[in-house]
């Protein structure tokens, strides 16, 4: 009975795992099929008769995917660095200091969660244009325009506020006695203590920024600065008649993020394992 129950659980989970891989595997299979092979063959052929990297070579020649990867990397890592620093700075007084207007500040930040970016994106675009933060004013301006609106967000601030709140007050008090000012307390003492939360924020910000499509597709005009999602979407409309190339491009585009995810997977699942910090 016990074994039967476990077996059925495994079967269900294996089916779900297969389902979550099939769309990508089918894309991979298509990307590996040569010119001579019919990608619409009936019945469908899962393992190509002749595995070829021709499509990958060709798509790398036709489309600057490596450039897209570099752009995505610049945008995502800058967004991460800014989020980590700005969220931590803002979270510290909200967790550790008493000051006039604390409540209002807190609720103002909370309110930003309620408003979807899509509802304000038009004025954000107008402001970005007025600040000359688009690619027609140069590459750096273009990158900044993609990064700036996402340099900080309320989730990060609240996440770090919780982390700061969890640190015992006594640690801070001893530093005050030693004559540290609040910036020293923050930078030398508390900031290093919330490293696990910072890592978590960094990883989720990176993934979010790496996959972001709507905003870059609005601000970008120059293909030179395309990030991966914009570039791959562009590729999929430009080569819609040749799905081998679209598939090859898509597969190349997901390799960096899958490597990143697998390397850091313990951070993703650490909050779901027993024996981890109980909340």
């Amino acid at each position, binding site marked *: 009975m016990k074994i039967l129950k*476990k077996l059925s*659980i*495994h079967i*269900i*989970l294996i089916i779900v*795992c297969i389902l*979550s*891989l099939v*769309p*990508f595997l089918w*894309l991979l299979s298509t990307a590996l099929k040569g010119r001579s092979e019919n990608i619409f063959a*009936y*019945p*469908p052929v899962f393992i190509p008769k002749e595995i070829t990297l021709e499509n990958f070579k060709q798509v790398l020649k036709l489309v600057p995917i490596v450039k897209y990867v570099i752009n995505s990397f610049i945008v995502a890592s800058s967004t991460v660095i800014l989020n980590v*620093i700005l*969220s931590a*700075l*803002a979270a510290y*007084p*909200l967790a550790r*200091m008493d*000051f006039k207007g*604390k409540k209002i500040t807190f609720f*103002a930040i909370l309110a930003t969660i*309620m*408003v*979807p970016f*899509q*509802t*304000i*994106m*038009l*004025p*954000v675009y*107008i*402001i970005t244009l007025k600040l000359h933060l688009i690619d027609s004013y140069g590459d750096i301006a273009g990158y900044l325009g993609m990064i*700036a*609106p996402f*340099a*900080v967000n309320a989730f990060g601030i609240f996440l770090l506020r919780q982390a700061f709140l969890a640190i015992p007050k006594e640690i801070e008090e001893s530093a005050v006695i030693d004559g540290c000012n609040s910036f020293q307390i*923050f930078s030398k003492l508390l900031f290093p203590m919330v490293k696990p939360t910072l890592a978590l924020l960094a990883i989720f910000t990176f*993934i979010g920024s*790496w*996959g972001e499509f*709507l905003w870059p597709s*609005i601000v970008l005009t120059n293909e030179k600065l395309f990030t991966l999602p914009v570039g*791959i979407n562009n590729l999929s409309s430009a080569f819609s008649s040749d799905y081998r190339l679209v*598939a090859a491009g898509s597969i190349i*585009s*997901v390799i960096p993020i*899958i490597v990143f*995810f697998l390397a850091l*997977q313990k951070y*993703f*699942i650490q*909050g*779901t394992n027993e024996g*981890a910090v*109980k*909340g």
Partner: protein
Amino acid sequence: MDLKKSLGAYLFLLPAGIILLIFFFIPFFQTVYLSFFDYSKDVYNPVFVSFDNYIALIKSPLFIKTILNTFFFLILCVPFLVIFPLFLAILINQNIRCKNVYKVLIYLPVVISIVVVAIAFKWLYAPEGLLNFVLEKLHIAPLGWLSDPKIAMISVALVTIFKGVGYYMMIYLSALMSVPKELYEAIDVDGASFFKKHTVITIPHIMPMIALVSTISSISALKVFVEIYVMTRGGPLNSTKTIVYYIYEKAFENLDLGIASAGAVILLFIVMGFSILNIFVFEKDKYAI
């Protein structure tokens, strides 16, 4: 609470404050402001028209259709995204092997850009694609997954579900850790079934998380855009045109900033309404309504 200390606190808040001011608070009020102007005749010389944009939208059959489409999409996604990941989380939380492998594989679609996921599904949905082959094997007539106005929205919702399951499963898994083990031991003594065990203990215990997942998944359903942009562009016959897609089209294709802003304000009210509705449904005991 001296002045110097308050000043110090604001210095810490300043960098984040500047970003939020420029890219959130100003645009927020500007959206409301723009919604009272008519840009349709001349983008450079908008005319103040008070509530005309809102009236025009409410009278527009297309806009009403986009609202209905968005709600249809929400009804397709949200119940599934609230229930199925919970079911998976409970299964994974049993004492079984390979837990982490399952978690990683089910989470994988979450880290992959929605653009690539949509492209992969577009390929599955092709008229001679894999899904129609499967249907044929099951002796069901092939479907126009993205070309039939009756089912295009369902096809789009499947993509959103596919991308979301892992995310909500992880949220549930972290919530399940807080359920005290002793409760299960007690009910095991009574010889309760698997189903009863979880309806009596697990679900009531993690109700706040279920509420959170319903709220987050409803709000993201109301904001759906990229899946539609990549796969259907709102078609066929506007059957997958959602509110955000409509706003996008009006703002960035027609340059009708007033109508787009009014649409955005209406969306904002719907989103806030949903957040409040969720609080009422799930936490009405707390507020004694």
